[in-house]
Every structure is written in C-alpha cells, then in structure tokens.
C-alpha cells in the first residue's frame, strides 16, 4: 500500500525535466525530495498531483493508476498538496477555505460516487476540529487574505490535511518563514506523521529536512542521485558534489570554512547554497 513512481519521465519540449525516475513512498513516514534548483523536485510534485501529465511511466496509488486521471480525480483518491506560492482563497473566510474541501462529499448521491452524503453539521465539525488542531480557531471567521503570512502557510497546511488524505505533498512549506516559524513548522509537520499517511516534502531548508525526514531523496538533473536516511545523505559524497561542486572545489570550501564550523557536515554548508 503505497504511492509508487515507475520509470517516470517528463519532457518539456526538448528539455528533459525528469529521467526514468522510480520511487516508492510507503505510508507512515515523512519523505523529503531535495536537490539543486532545476533538479525536478517541483515537477515530481506536479506530476503526482496531476498538474502535469507524465511523458512516460506510471504513477500508482495502491492499485489505482494516478497518472491517467484528471487533477480533481487524483485529489478525490486522496492525494492532497500545498503550493510553493500560497494558493488560498483570499476572499473567503478561514473556515470556508476548509469547507470547500468537502464540496464533493456534501453533494447529493446523484453527483457523488460512493460514500455517504456529508451533512453540514458533520462538515463544520470536521473543519472546526481541524482549525483547533492547527491553532487557527481564533481566526475562523477572518478572511484568509487578511492573515499574516505565517498563519496563511499554516492554513494551507491545514487545508491539505483536513480531508485525511493518505498522501500529502508539501511544496516548500517553510519558504518565506523566519527561523522561529520554520522550527514551529518542522515541529508541526513531524506531529502530523501517522501510520496511514505518507507526507512528501519538497524543501530547501536543510535543517527542516534533516530534522524530520525518515528518508531523503536527492534529485539532480532530473535523476535520482541518492536516496537514504538524513545521516547517510549528509555523508554521501555524490550529494555533496551536486550541492557544492567537485571534490576539489569542496576541499577549498572546507578549508575556507575550517574552524568556523560548529555543526559538521552538509548542515553547515547548506546555508551557503540555500536558494
């Protein structure tokens, strides 16, 4: 029971964004996809969520072939996402932003395949519980666009989790957040880990990635460079090269930063290459 990418490729005209990528994401873990700019991280998210079609290969969620479905059908199957740039409904209240996630569940049977019809009471109960979990209860009636940026980020996170989707894609959840907010975000995402859910993260902030991931997949030029635990990734030479250049160049960087380093390995360098 998992989300799998099988020999997936994506071309944009002559540009090959993803080359023969195969990955498996089991439930019950947090995964991070990292890599230099242009490595194809967001392309993977957009293909899984159905914003892009795959050029070749298959994406499956359990027994369902996801890569041949329309975007809204993929979301109905249980793959939800956040966006690199906030995509909230600014003119609607915080509560309404969550309510619309249950639109299809609230329709009469004729327009909804399977399941029971969700009543307004059930819908509001789910949404209010979610707002409470994400510390947004106090602003339920405020317009989403009026919230400070940090809380908008949290609301988008809440919107991805409110339907209990088994796969949640988070596209740069820490982008634009300050240090404290990023730490808070990391703590929050870690607390959302559940045995029936896979969380897949695309993120540049190495502290965040290394502190909460169970597995880190490193992409470079559209190919899987390395996949392993945060510690293994940190120690891997190929990864260091992709981020910092060849071993010779890396040596120079090492020498330059020698003595000033406090928390060894790539963690210290991450600051240099953060995009």
């Amino acid at each position, binding site marked *: 029971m998992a989300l799998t990418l099988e020999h997936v490729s994506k071309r944009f005209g002559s540009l090959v964004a993803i080359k023969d990528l195969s990955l498996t994401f089991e439930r019950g873990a947090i995964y991070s996809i990292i890599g230099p700019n242009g490595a194809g991280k967001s392309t993977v998210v957009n293909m899984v969520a159905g914003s892009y079609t795959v050029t070749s290969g298959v994406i499956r969620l359990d027994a369902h072939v996801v890569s041949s479905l329309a975007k809204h059908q993929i979301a109905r199957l249980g793959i939800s996402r956040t966006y690199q740039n906030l995509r909230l*409904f600014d003119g609607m209240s915080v509560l309404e932003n969550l309510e619309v996630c249950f639109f299809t569940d609230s329709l009469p049977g004729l327009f909804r395949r399977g399941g029971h019809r969700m009543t307004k009471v059930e819908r509001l109960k789910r949404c209010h519980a979610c707002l409470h979990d994400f510390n947004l209860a106090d602003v339920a009636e405020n317009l989403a666009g009026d919230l400070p940026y940090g809380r908008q980020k949290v609301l988008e996170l809440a919107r991805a989790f409110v339907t209990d989707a088994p796969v949640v894609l988070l596209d740069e959840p820490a982008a634009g957040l300050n240090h404290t907010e990023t730490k808070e975000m990391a703590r929050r995402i870690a607390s959302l880990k559940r045995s029936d859910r896979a969380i897949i993260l695309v993120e540049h902030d190495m502290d965040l990635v290394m502190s909460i991931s169970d597995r880190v997949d490193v992409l470079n030029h559209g190919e899987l460079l390395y996949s392993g635990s945060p510690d293994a990734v940190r120690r891997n030479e190929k990864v260091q090269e992709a981020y910092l250049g060849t071993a010779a160049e890396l040596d120079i960087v090492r020498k330059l930063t020698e003595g000033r380093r406090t928390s060894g390995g790539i963690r210290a360098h991450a600051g240099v290459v953060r995009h």
Partner: protein
Amino acid sequence: MGKSVFLRRTGLIVTLLVCVALLVKVPALPPYYVRVADSILIYIILAVGLNIVVGYAGLLDLGFIAFYAVGAYTYAFLASGQFDIHLPFLIILLIGAGTGALAGILLGFPVLKLRGDYLAIVTLSFGEIIRILINNADDLTNGPQGIAALDRARIFGLPLISPTNFYFLLLILTIVVCGAVYFMERSILGKAWRALREDQDATRGLGINTTGLKLAAFAISAAIGGATGVIFSAFQRFVSPESFTFQESLLVVLIIIIGGVGNIVGIAAGAILLIILPEVLHFAAQYRLLIYGLVLVVVIVLRPNGLIPPAFNLGHVIRKIQALWLSPSNT
C-alpha cells in the same frame, strides 16, 4: 436599553410594513407605472440569474439574453396557433426553465476551457447566433415578423390579463428566485463557486470537478432566464427577435455591475435605477442617452464596487432583522 430595542423593533416593523404596503400598492398607480414596475421585476430576476455565472462563478457571460429568448419562444411555440399547441402556462413555465437550462449546458460545454475575454466574446457570439437563428428560421419563428396572438396565460383557471396580474406573478417569482439564489449562495455550492472564481486550479486540486461546477452555474442561471422569458412572452402575447438584441444582454450585465457584483440587494437597486432612468429622462428627448451614459459613468466613478456596498447584502439584512428579533426585550 429595553426601550431602545422596543423602539428599533417598532421601527423595523414599520419599515417592513411600509415596504410591503408600497409593493402591494404599486398596482393602484396608472397602468404605465405598473408596466415599468413589471419591467423592473423582470430585469431583477434576469440579473439575479445571470449573477450566478458572473458574480459567483466569475465567468463573464455577454449572451445571457439568448436564454431569455429560448424561454420566450418556448411559450410562443407551445401556446399559440403557430403549431396549434396550447399547453397550460405553468407547464410551459417549467418547460421553459428546462429548455433554458439545456441551452445553458449546450453553451457551457464548448466554452468551459475559456476564461475572461475569450469567454465573453464567445458568449456574446452565442447570444447573437440565437437571435440571428430566430430571425432567419422563417418556418419555425416567422422570422422578423415574430409570432403574434399567443394564448392568454391562465393559472388554475384564472386568466392573467392586466399588467397588475403580471406584477403579482413577477413579484412572487422575484421573491422565490431571490430566496433560492440566496440559499445557493450560502450553501456549499456557493462557496465552491467563489473558490472557482478565485483560483480554478487550486479548486481542482481540492478534488472539485470544476467542469461540473461551471455547467451547474450555466444551467441554473439559464433556467432562470428561460422561465423569465416565458413570463415575458405570456405578458406581451407577441415575440419577435428584436426583443433579444445584444443591448439587452449588456443591460443585464450593467445592472449587475452598477448595483454590485454578487450582491442581490445591489442588483435590485441597479435594476430600479437602470430601468427607471430612461423613463424619467423622457423629457430630455434626443439628449436622453447622453445623460443616461453620464449617470452611469458618474456611478462607476463614485462607487466602483456598485451602488450598494458588498457588506450590505441580503445576508446582512436578514442577520440584522434576526438580531433585533432575538435580542432580549427586558422592558
């Protein structure tokens, strides 16, 4: 405290009674005024219907009058000597809503992928195509001569003859349509439409079939247009293509923009202003349209969000009345 609640409550009752009295007393005016009132009600219903597509779903439809035409000709075909079919008025009212909805879906399908300017142009063309079709399908519609001597409408045996009869019929329909549309606005459907208007892609990303959502907006709005067309046709007892020009579509869109997009109270105000204005300006003879245009420009400049502010909508009015009603009156 208790006294002020009592006073405000009395004020509210008086206001409501005055409103009801004014609405009921309209037929006491000379027939000319009743006809103007009928016209206002027709445009309120049309604009509230079109507002579903334009205001809620955010899709600019410039060919809305086509659905009104479809409804009007539905009555002309089914209640006249044209094909010697004479169905009862209320049945045709339902059929008219149905044919309107069908036309809405037919228009909806090809234009679903379009947005903004492109959608506006295609819907404008659709409106013109329907009018030109009616104008040329001589065998069916008598072309520009139109269809005359339509049946007198009857409701449960009672004939609808005078503008006053139609005034009450339209008043009831206005209340029903406004109530139904307001209910939709508040429901999860209305929220999904607003989401669609703000960000179509993100809406799809939440598992919402935006195609179905747009078709629903087109169909419901067109059904309202169709039903209104049936009443118009039964009222005039004559239809011809010249009632359904692009200017009519534009007028309905203008009512929404001038009144306040997405705001039912605003739309009513917009319809009253835009229908009464040309009547009031009769004295100005050839300068009438000039003044009309100037007034519109002034309204848009002074009140870019419409005559009635978005915060003052039907929900606001209802909440005010509820609050006053439920507040404790410890006198």
